[in-house]
């Protein structure tokens, strides 16, 4: 498990490619624990350097307040419950928007690969919408849906929709014909083929799309909160920033690092779970 720690480092760029014949970076099994130890050590060393630098005056404590102060602030806010409100709100907005995007985006992607009309309509929209900076549309959503949660969630859904739909479309087109033909020759109905053959074969790509979309959704959530307020981590951080409360800002950073890590790793676990049958998991 720890041997694959480096491989799971980053899901996004990793376009399910066949495992290369023994990576040349050495250290498969025996060195794995050592590697892990060194890496944990690096993180600890960075924390110590942060703390010591700020305490001993090497770094201006306003620019980088000591780690212990930041942690103390988080502890305080955790006692008063503020941390959980912020984390909860940010998580709710990000995940709700993400979910809406998935519920719309995946069927759109599937329909695109099966129906000419849907493809005709959505293909150019995806190819335009995918690369454009969606946050720019935020003021439009504020204008249409006001500044409360509705517009935040819609904004997040809007920015997550494109990667999900594009990945689903790419995943469900150009599938290997043989499994489909054999399923058909065994008498499977079209719906059964969709559920039992097409979707499982497209699942790795769909999941990759979700894994691209989720961080985008988090980025967008934080921006919407910073711009419109309404608590959440982004809201609290920008407030702290405006009041030059650098401890508050860094408390927010530590919280969002933890939240981002948690969310992204959970999705990786979901992927490993859903693709337990897939060669990519057994390696």
């Amino acid at each position, binding site marked *: 498990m720890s041997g694959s720690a480096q491989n799971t480092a980053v899901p996004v760029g990793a376009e399910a490619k066949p495992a290369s014949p023994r990576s040349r970076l050495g250290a498969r099994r025996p060195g794995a624990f050592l590697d892990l130890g060194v890496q944990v050590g690096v993180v600890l060393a960075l924390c110590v350097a942060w703390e010591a630098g700020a305490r001993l005056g090497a770094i201006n404590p306003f620019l980088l307040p000591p780690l212990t102060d930041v942690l103390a602030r988080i502890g305080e806010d955790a006692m008063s419950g503020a941390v959980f409100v912020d984390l909860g709100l940010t998580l709710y907005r990000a995940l709700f928007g993400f979910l809406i995007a998935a519920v719309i985006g995946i069927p759109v992607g599937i329909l695109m690969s099966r129906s000419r009309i849907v493809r*005709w309509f959505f293909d*150019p929209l995806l190819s335009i919408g995918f690369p454009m900076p969606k946050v720019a549309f935020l003021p439009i959503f504020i204008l249409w849906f006001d500044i409360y949660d509705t517009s935040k969630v819609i904004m997040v859904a809007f920015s997550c929709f494109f990667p999900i739909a594009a990945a689903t479309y790419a995943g469900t087109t150009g599938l290997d014909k043989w499994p489909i033909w054999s399923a058909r020759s065994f008498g499977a109905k079209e719906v059964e083929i969709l559920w039992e053959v097409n979707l499982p074969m497209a699942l790795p790509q769909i999941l990759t799309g979700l894994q691209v979309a989720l961080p985008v959704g988090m980025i967008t959530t934080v921006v919407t909160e910073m711009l419109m307020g309404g608590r959440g981590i982004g809201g609290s951080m920008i407030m702290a920033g405006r009041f030059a409360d650098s401890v508050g800002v860094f408390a927010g950073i530590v919280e969002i690092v933890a939240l981002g890590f948690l969310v992204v790793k959970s999705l990786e676990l979901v992927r490993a779970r859903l693709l337990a049958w897939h060669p990519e998991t057994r390696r």
Partner: protein
Amino acid sequence: MSAAGAGPADAALALPRNTLLFKLFDGVLRYSPLLVLVAVWEGLGLSGFVSRQMLPDLGTILSEFWRMLTGGDLLYNTARSLSRSFSGLALAIVVGLAAGLAMATARPARLLINPVVQIFYPMPKSALIPVVMIWLGLGDASKVLLIFLGCLLPVVVGAYNGARGVNPFLVWSARSLGAGRFEVLREVIVPAAMPEILNGCRTALAFSFILMVSSEFLIASDGVGYMISSLGDGGIYPAMFAVIFFVAAIGFAADRVYSVIMRRQLRWREA
């Protein structure tokens, strides 16, 4: 990420492929759904269901766009924004490539950099906006730093994954033919890793636009993001819509240009 552009070419037409007529017809047919959206937009506006304030008619938006374009306002702010976004991106590509390749080729570098990448990769980079605001104030430097930090990791990861996946036989052959470490890197590893490197940079390009716009919404006194938010605050909605569509178009165009360059760079692989 590669799921992006390059939809399937419309093979529906029976015209010969490279005539001008074909290309024109193909383009119109391909982007005709946009006309549907335009019609819906105008129809909703005319029907009176939605106030014109919220859905200004496209003629007004276009004329506002023209006014700002000829007034020089839009071009000035676009230049400001793009200069920030490209300097941050360029820095990120240089540093990220170096870090990613070092990680893939040298174990100490990997052990040092990987934990940092692992921790910060999932962090939504827009959360750094207040941090750069505290560090560098409201000037250009803060936004360049933000874009640099936001674009760095996709490049590092692309370079690392690409270089790590290089077939070791290629490296061994080059070494046995007497190539030095640096030569191997330049002649074997980088070319072989190019697709992933370029993909990483493409992600970074998209991030640079997102971060440029959102940081200008929040901390700036010029640039397109600032233009959008100040027009919105002033209630001049047709102009706001015009700038928003313009920014979206620039982001789209940048990605298109990039993908053309990318395909040229990778042409030798197809053969």
